[in-house]
């Protein structure tokens, strides 16, 4: 069952290359088309052996450049064979025989090459970019002390300040041994100071109130979905525990450092590892690649038509 799936990009590439061959003049295609497909097939096989992941993408980037330059060269050579170049360019715009066909013959090859270059480039970049996953834990803020939080929103704001406070983050860092873990991940194994780890953690942490509720969303971004969920949960738990300790009459610093504007938080949703990355947004990037590619390709096709029209006008002007 695996073999047909792994062959899909290979077969798709061959099918697409066969279709792109019509960018070449019919005579050239008839004589060398089969050999070119055979050679491309061999190159696909080599590319896959060299790099199963990116080999075909790299080959396509080279092949599109090859197609763009050589198809234009072959078409120009084919035009030269019949008449002089200027006569032929002029006749393209004479529209004496099949005007739409002749216009399409100029427009479509340019459109296809530019569109595919932009589209495949955007797809390649999308898949090269590192993936970022987000995991969110939600904490419910229970009764609040009216003196320090006059309304629900400021209560939530105060709660978010507490969640991102040094006391909560230090506890989460200690619980997960993030000084060692981040040191291994970002600094070749060097153990970080808690203040350094906290800076890194703050960059990965996003807090947001959930509208019309007393919930705070604690979202953690990471290249590892498991790590994102683990840290988001650790921050939520550290906040809950510290709040509960703060309510105890015997509580002492640093717990008391969290100005009491919220109390008895409950973790409503624990963070779970997400399978789909939030960045890059692959469907959006591919859609944008297609839209931008279509716009640029249309502009390039129209420019090619305008250029040929200009050549014809210059030729028709008396010297």
């Amino acid at each position, binding site marked *: 069952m695996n073999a047909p799936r792994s062959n899909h990009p290979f077969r798709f590439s061959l099918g697409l290359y066969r279709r792109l061959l019509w960018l070449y003049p019919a005579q050239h295609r008839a004589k060398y088309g089969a*050999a070119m497909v055979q*050679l491309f097939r061999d190159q696909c096989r080599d590319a896959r052996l060299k790099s199963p992941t990116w080999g075909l993408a790299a080959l396509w980037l080279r092949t599109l450049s090859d197609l763009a330059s*050589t198809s234009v060269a072959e078409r120009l050579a084919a035009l030269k064979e019949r008449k002089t170049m200027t006569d032929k360019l002029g006749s393209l715009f004479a529209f004496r025989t099949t005007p739409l066909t002749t216009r399409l013959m100029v427009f479509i090859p340019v459109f296809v090459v530019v569109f595919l270059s932009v589209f495949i480039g955007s797809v390649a970049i999308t898949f090269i970019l590192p993936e970022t996953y987000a995991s969110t834990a939600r904490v419910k803020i229970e009764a609040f002390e009216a003196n320090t939080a006059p309304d629900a929103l400021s209560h939530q704001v105060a709660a978010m300040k507490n969640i991102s406070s040094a006391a909560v983050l230090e506890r989460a860092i200690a619980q997960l041994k993030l000084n060692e873990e981040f040191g291994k991940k970002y600094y070749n194994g060097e153990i970080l100071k808690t203040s350094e780890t906290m800076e890194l953690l703050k960059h990965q942490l996003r807090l947001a109130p959930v509208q019309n509720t007393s919930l705070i969303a604690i979202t953690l971004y990471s290249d590892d979905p498991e790590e994102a969920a683990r840290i988001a949960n650790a921050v939520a738990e550290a906040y809950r525990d510290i709040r509960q300790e703060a309510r105890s009459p015997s509580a002492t610093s640093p717990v008391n450092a969290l100005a009491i504007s919220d109390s008895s938080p409950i973790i409503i949703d624990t963070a779970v590892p997400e399978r789909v990355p939030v960045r890059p947004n692959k469907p959006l990037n591919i859609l944008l690649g297609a839209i931008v590619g279509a716009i640029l390709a249309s502009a390039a096709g129209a420019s090619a038509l305008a250029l040929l029209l200009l050549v014809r006008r210059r030729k028709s002007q008396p010297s």
Partner: protein
Amino acid sequence: MVKPQTDPACRLPLTPAVFHVLLALADGERHGYAIMQEVAASTGGQIKLGPGTLYGTVKRLLEAQLIEESDERPDPQQDDERRRYYRLTAVGEQVVRAEARRYAEIVALARAKKLIGRTALVPLPGGGA
């Protein structure tokens, strides 16, 4: 005075793609993929001919009668019968020799001016000998 077309010198200089394809065929007949591999190997991967460039070059070399299609086929069990084999013509061989001599003269000149030393002529990676 216009030189006759049979004079190899009137076809020089060759483009790098043409020269490398002719050099690849100097060892004997090859099909398109083998030419591409030989060019990539002899230039250390610096020149990777795509299908369009390779068969465009082949077309022009056939028209100029510097190469020809070979009728001899290897054992069908060892080869794909759809492949086309090409070999140098006598004129093609003269032209590639003339171009190689031209390069050699340029190298000799550069060496005489001490722009390069003997070590500049080490074989390219993957280029055999």
